[in-house]
């Protein structure tokens, strides 16, 4: 199988947006806390396309496929920056809370959700004109966010409560508050939307949450201070960044069996699987780089330099809008 789809083929099969404005090859948008920038990487070639100035201490990131733009939280600047694919190299910002961190785009509505780390709320903004659209009341230190594919609810990691809350996105009410491990941070949904995985920083494990039962059904031990996870749906492998171990744990979330441990840079944070490349990408905060893992061999393949303090917490990879047959 040719994993690196030719650009021409991708352009020909793009669905939602006009070819001139669309992502042609998978791009990574890596937030760099130190220099207050985002590194834009072409993941097919590994080349840096741009380094874009954003707000202070950029951390969270969310790709908006519909509008072909990227939202970045700036916890040090109390703002969200927007990078337009059509205007590479520059960003504009709007104010958001006091410590915006986790961020996610609604798969259905033109809305983006921003977790205010200290203010027990998630702010809502329009992805079309960036106007405020209200807020959701959540638990303590909301961190990772994961909206359901049908836009019915939003999962929120209430870190200091050791819970994950499900919020009804129509009524804004809390549907369920589910106890998980210690200090849940990054959240990942299974492709069928029935299972949620939370990386639990202080209990060194991953909670597997059955969303129909609204209960934790399994706890899987990983490395020291897990931060976030990514699912390789083809092989059913969950990749988990361990901040203090400098590793990525690879586990089978159905059985809890550990399949491998990959050593990456110190303080790995954001992690995502790219279906078009069939690779896992991991940002290393201390070593200022994006690491590429082959999910078949569980070997490290490339190290792509980014800026100081690479975080990439959220959906940081922009995939082409459609894949060839």
């Amino acid at each position, binding site marked *: 199988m040719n994993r690196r789809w030719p650009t021409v083929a991708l352009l020909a099969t793009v669905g939602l947006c006009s070819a001139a404005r669309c992502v042609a090859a998978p791009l990574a948008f890596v937030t760099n*806390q130190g220099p207050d920038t985002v590194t834009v990487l072409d993941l097919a070639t590994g080349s840096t396309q741009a380094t874009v100035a954003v707000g202070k201490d950029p*951390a969270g990131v969310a790709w908006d496929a519909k509008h072909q733009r990227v939202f970045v939280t700036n916890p*040090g600047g109390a703002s969200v920056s927007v990078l337009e694919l059509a205007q590479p190299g520059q960003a504009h910002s709007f104010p958001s809370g*006091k410590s915006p961190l986790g961020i996610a785009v609604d798969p259905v509505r033109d809305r983006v959700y921003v977790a205010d*780390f200290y203010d027990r709320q998630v702010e809502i903004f329009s992805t079309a004109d960036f106007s405020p659209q209200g807020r959701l009341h959540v638990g303590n230190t909301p961190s990772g966010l994961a909206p359901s594919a049908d836009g019915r609810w939003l999962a929120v990691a209430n870190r200091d409560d050791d819970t994950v809350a499900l919020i009804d996105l129509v009524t804004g009410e809390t549907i369920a508050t589910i106890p998980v491990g210690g*200090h849940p941070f990054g959240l990942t949904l299974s492709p069928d939307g029935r299972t949620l995985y939370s990386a639990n920083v*202080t209990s060194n494990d991953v909670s597997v949450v059955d969303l129909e039962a609204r209960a934790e059904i399994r706890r899987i031990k990983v490395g020291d201070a897990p931060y976030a996870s990514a699912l390789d749906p083809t092989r059913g492998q969950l990749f988990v960044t361990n901040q203090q171990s400098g590793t990525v744990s690879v586990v089978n979330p159905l059985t809890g069996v550990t399949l491998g441990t990959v050593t990456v840079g110190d303080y790995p944070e954001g992690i995502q699987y790219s279906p078009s490349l069939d690779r896992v990408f991991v940002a290393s*905060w201390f070593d200022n780089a994006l690491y590429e893992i082959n999910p078949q061999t569980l070997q490290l393949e490339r190290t792509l330099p980014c800026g100081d303090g690479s975080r990439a917490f959220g959906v940081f990879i922009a995939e082409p809008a459609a894949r060839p047959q």
Partner: protein
Amino acid sequence: MLRRFALALFCLLPLAATAHGPSRQKVEQEITIKAPAAKVWGLIADFCSIEKWHPGVAKCEGTGGNAVGAVRTLHVGKPDGPVIVEELLMHDPAKMSYKYKITQTDVSVLPVTTYAAFLTVSDNGDGTTKVVWKGGFYRSWGKNDPPPEQSDAAAVKAVTATYQGGLANIKKLAEQ
């Protein structure tokens, strides 16, 4: 730094270990020493030897030697000074490196939380030795709007001063 530590002896505020700022901070400092790597490592290899080489540490009480899980209790500035407790996470003589975390601090001298650091010695191959001290941590203030003395900048400043002071004295001792 001794002076900075000494000025703050009276203020003992144990920290909640869980609350912290939204952005982890990092400090990395290094120094080149004109002495063999084995000599430099010999000075600092023992977890509790810090009382001998760090000018800010008046006393170290250790348990567990250099085994993972060993604990050192540091008294800052003078033998009954502010207390910082640290736990050994990794100790590798072959790589001349160890890693530790802070389990209890005193924000008057070190306003950090969720702190872990590596201290690593490497042979430059030309008769000189490099020592790198690098740490990741959060500010101690776990809410919005930190007071200046518990801000990100204050945390970075205190850790930087700690590393610079320690490294300079390692160099001085090793080059004697």
